[in-house]
């Protein structure tokens, strides 16, 4: 203990007397550890931290796979859930999540839009989630019996509802008395049975059609068996399909469950012709794995980038420690001469290195807490909110291992270097330049730093070019000057005809607002969350033959294209009369579908078949619109069918208003119109957003990756430059006498200058070659993030190489100048 304290005291003393030696590594490490800890915190939170469910590793998700249709993953139809519940004993329970409805919450101080999730009542038992207050749903609570379903006059009692913690806090001020009260959601009474815990969130991957921002939950009133199976169709986005979450029995493995589902799916193929044709299989995947899959490429790219930064920071610290080792060889030799064994010397050096690592680690964790906030503030959707990301035990372990580990490794190297030649430092003869091996190691570290900086810069460059390519993409609409909003029409508005008339009136009043150029309605805006696809076929085909054709499906009103700025390439848009009448079945298709339906010809006038409410219908194509990127700016386009709103008048709609007025004035006016149109039941009008924000959101992951990798690359280049500067400066100081002699012998200063610059450029050149390999490997591993640029994009590699060479010249210039300005006489006295 006494020895340790003495070592610590000496270490403190030594570092205090050379603050630069202490501060530079501590801050360098803090930077590396802070950045990597921040990214690792997000990585840990998203990918490694289990969701707050009971035994989450036993939760699975079921997907339908329809290989003959080229569909890797489809939502499971409700009647199939009933079959699987009946036939599979691998699961303690199978819950069916149908989706979410937008409606209005009444009876509080104001009317608010709420998103109510709909699932079988066993969802919370399957997840193993208890209510924070009250209870979750009881078995079959709120579910209609066969007799009740058969009775058209049956009046159900108010169904139960479970409030999410956020809505309970915000709308009810955490009043526990709300449990047991009956509230009106979208005009329908609901009995509040409980409040969910604050950390509850239904973790599902994209593609299930279930949104993540659900405010409350109600049980699915119709049992899965009672749903109608679409005849010969795959209506993947209707209420008849949804996400299926299962809990494996304790004694059942994932493989066993898969085997059981394979048997059941083969029975389904035998029983149902369209499943046979589609080659149905059921995929059973771990819920947590699957839910975070989509975030992996971005997080792995960031983790890789930040690991490079950490390695560069560690290399720099190693460089400083090794430089210090060279300076301290004499001191170590004295200590050895005074009786210190090699172990004691190594321990002394490691104590100092450990202190630096500890300091860097602690400061790094502090930096990480800020960095997490900054990171997530600019983060795209799909990353958790900053309050969900914690500096957990595993994150702290990571920081400790990274900080202390890195300094210990390089500390050991420097300790070995210091204690290797213990006598020659004190004047004994022997080969001079004993620091040669250390200097080689330091050069190696600088080469490594340059290589990693180059790779990071190339990564940032490729993301920059990706972002530019995405911004150049013609998305099929004009985002500028376009205001959008969502409307949740309550049941009280009436049936499809009433809804169409309501929308018509709403549009008409908005159109009368000053500055409004056009207003249109759509089932789901481009680049929004709505996924609605339908099979289709040409006239003359039967619905059974439509398998394999799948198109985006959107209901729109007549002025939608004008409002969106989407060009009509042929024919016409819908007429105002078609907005509110379904006498004439008409449709508009996009250019891609038109080309498929009438290759090289005119699709206008032809008829197309698709399902509406599960029934096959045929519509006449009256127009062809330009292709629109509905889901992702990267998509190469998908066929799209537009039908007049009246033909499938959904309750959840979005509106596009092209206006010259400022957004806030328009929003106030539109809210007033909505209030004026509302009768007894308030109509929630919400989510006012500029269309630009949809584009920004679509660009967000790329911009985020570009920003973060770019920042890391800048840090990396700075650190590498410092490392290079250190190595070249040290080399110059070791060669001061040599330079003095050269200059005394008449060497021109430019020769000395170029000699030193060449040393730096030589190291950089090797680093660039290694870095190009690293960059290519990194770009290949994260190729899914790239768009419009190849992983071996020569202009990017070339420009980055020039940049790195320029930084090298800058970092080498000062020591080179110093070498060239050596006074020969003074240098010859130099030891």
């Amino acid at each position, binding site marked *: 203990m006494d020895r340790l304290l003495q070592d610590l005291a000496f270490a403190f003393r030594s570092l205090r007397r050379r603050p630069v030696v202490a501060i530079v590594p501590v801050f360098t490490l803090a930077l590396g550890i802070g950045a990597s800890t921040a990214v690792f915190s997000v990585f840990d939170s998203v990918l490694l931290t289990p969701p707050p469910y009971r035994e989450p590793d036993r939760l699975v998700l079921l997907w339908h796979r329809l290989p003959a249709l080229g569909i890797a993953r489809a939502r499971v139809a409700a009647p199939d859930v009933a079959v699987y519940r009946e036939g599979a004993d691998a699961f303690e329970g199978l819950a069916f999540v149908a989706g979410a409805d937008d409606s209005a919450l009444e009876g509080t101080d104001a009317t608010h839009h709420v998103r109510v999730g709909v699932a079988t009542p066993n969802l919370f038992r399957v997840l193993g989630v208890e209510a924070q207050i009250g209870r979750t749903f009881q078995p079959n609570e709120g579910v209609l019996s066969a007799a009740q379903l058969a009775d058209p006059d049956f009046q159900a009692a108010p169904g139960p509802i479970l409030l999410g913690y956020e809505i309970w806090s915000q709308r009810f001020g955490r009043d526990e008395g709300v449990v047991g009260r009956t509230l009106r959601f979208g005009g329908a009474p609901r009995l509040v049975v409980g409040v969910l815990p604050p950390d509850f969130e239904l973790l599902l991957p994209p593609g299930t059609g279930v949104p993540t921002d659900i405010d409350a939950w109600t049980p699915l009133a119709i049992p899965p068996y009672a749903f109608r199976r679409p005849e010969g169709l795959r209506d993947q986005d209707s209420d008849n399909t949804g996400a299926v979450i299962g809990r494996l029995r304790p004694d059942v493995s994932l493989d066993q469950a898969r085997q059981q589902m394979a048997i059941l799916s083969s029975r389904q193929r035998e029983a149902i012709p369209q499943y046979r044709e589609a080659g149905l299989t059921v995929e059973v995947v771990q819920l947590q794995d699957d839910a975070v899959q989509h975030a992996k490429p971005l997080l792995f790219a960031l983790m890789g980038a930040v690991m490079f930064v950490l390695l560069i920071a560690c290399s720099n610290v190693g460089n400083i420690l090794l430089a210090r080792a060279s300076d301290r060889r004499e001191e170590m*030799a*004295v200590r050895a001469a*005074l009786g210190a064994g090699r172990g004691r010397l190594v321990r002394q050096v490691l104590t100092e290195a450990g202190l630096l690592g500890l300091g860097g680690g602690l400061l790094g964790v502090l930096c990480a807490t800020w960095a997490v906030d900054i990171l997530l503030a600019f983060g795209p959707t799909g990353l958790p909110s900053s309050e969900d990301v914690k500096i957990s035990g595993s994150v702290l372990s990571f920081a400790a291992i990274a900080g202390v580990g890195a300094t210990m490794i390089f500390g050991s190297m420097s300790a070995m270097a210091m204690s290797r030649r213990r006598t020659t430092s004190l004047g004994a003869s022997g080969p001079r330049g004993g620091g040669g091996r250390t200097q080689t190691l330091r050069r190696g570290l600088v080469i490594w730093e340059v290589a990693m900086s180059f790779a990071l810069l190339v990564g940032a460059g490729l993301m920059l070019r990706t972002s530019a390519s995405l911004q150049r993409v013609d998305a099929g609409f004009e985002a500028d000057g376009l205001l959008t909003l969502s409307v949740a029409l309550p049941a009280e508005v009436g049936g499809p005809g009433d809804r169409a008339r309501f929308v018509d009136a709403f549009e008409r009043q908005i159109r009368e607002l000053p500055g409004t150029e056009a207003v249109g309605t759509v089932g789901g805006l481009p680049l929004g969350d709505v996924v609605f696809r339908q099979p289709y076929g040409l006239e003359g085909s039967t619905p059974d033959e439509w398998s394999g054709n799948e198109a985006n499906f959107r209901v729109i009103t007549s002025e939608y294209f004008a409002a969106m700025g989407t060009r009509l390439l042929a024919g016409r848009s819908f007429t105002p009369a078609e907005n509110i009448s379904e006498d004439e079945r008409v449709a508009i298709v996009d250019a891609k579908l038109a080309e498929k339906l009438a290759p090289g010809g005119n699709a206008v006038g032809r008829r197309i078949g698709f399902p509406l409410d599960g029934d096959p219908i045929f519509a006449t194509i009256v127009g062809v619109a330009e292709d629109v990127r509905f889901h992702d700016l990267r998509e190469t386009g998908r066929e799209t069918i537009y039908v007049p709103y009246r033909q499938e008048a959904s309750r959840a709609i979005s509106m596009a208003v092209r206006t010259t007025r400022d957004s806030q004035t328009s929003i106030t006016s539109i809210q007033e119109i909505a209030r004026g149109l509302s009768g007894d039941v308030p109509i929630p009008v919400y989510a006012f957003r500029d269309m630009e924000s949809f584009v920004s959101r679509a660009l967000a992951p790329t911009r985020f990756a570009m920003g973060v990798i770019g920042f890391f690359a800048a840090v990396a280049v700075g650190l590498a430059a410092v490392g290079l500067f250190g190595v070249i400066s040290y080399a110059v100081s070791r060669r001061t006498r040599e330079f003095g002699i050269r200059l005394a012998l008449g060497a021109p200063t430019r020769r000395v200058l170029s000699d030193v610059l060449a040393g730096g450029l030589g190291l950089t050149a090797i680093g660039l070659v290694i870095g190009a390999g690293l960059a290519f490997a990194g770009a290949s591993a994260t190729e899914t993030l790239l768009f419009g640029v190849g992983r071996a994009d020569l202009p990017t590699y070339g420009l980055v190489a020039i940049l790195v060479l320029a930084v090298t010249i800058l970092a080498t210039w000062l020591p080179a100048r110093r070498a060239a300005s050596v006074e020969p006489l003074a240098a010859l006295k130099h030891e």
Partner: protein
Amino acid sequence: MIRLKGIEKSYPYKGGRTWVLRRIDLEIAEGDFVTITGPSGAGKSTLLGILGLLDGAFDGEYWFVDEPVHALKPKHRNELHKAYIGFVFQQYHLIDDLTVYENLEIPLSYRDIKKSERQATVADILDRFNIVGKKDLFPNQLSGGQQQQVAVARAMICQPKLILADEPTGSLHSSQGEKIMQMLKTLNDEGTTIVQVTHDPNVAAYGDRQINLADGWMVDEG
């Protein structure tokens, strides 16, 4: 105390070897004051390093207090070094980060001596060398003579049987050098064996015996 037989030392150099010491045979008895002289590069400091048990990479036999140093493992060699040997260097080689007190204490701490005992020993030696008033100063706050005085005190603090001094007055002016040599002479008179390396004939004269080295060979002994 010391018996060297056929000691040789060389380094690999461009496919061959560079010889630093050649066939050194030497005996030093307890209480001797031996001076090693010779031109630069003769191998004086290398020989001192071997004598001081800091360098184990040599050929030949080296017996120190009847222990076969040539056959000892580094750990045992280090223990022997700690038990018997003190060093004084031309450049003093005090540790810059430590005060005079701590510089004196450090050899004791390397020998795992208890703190109370260390304090008493350091206090004693400070008193003996008349440097009590300097104990809290750092080396760069002392003159060259004072630094070498502390270095001799440090070499003495573990009461070594052998002091090896490499140009002990090389960086001092004559009066300071004389003072240091008087100290070493006094220690020798008290029974400590001294081996010094020097170029200075006046300093060499303090020794009882003189050994001359040239190109690694022992050319003369008087």
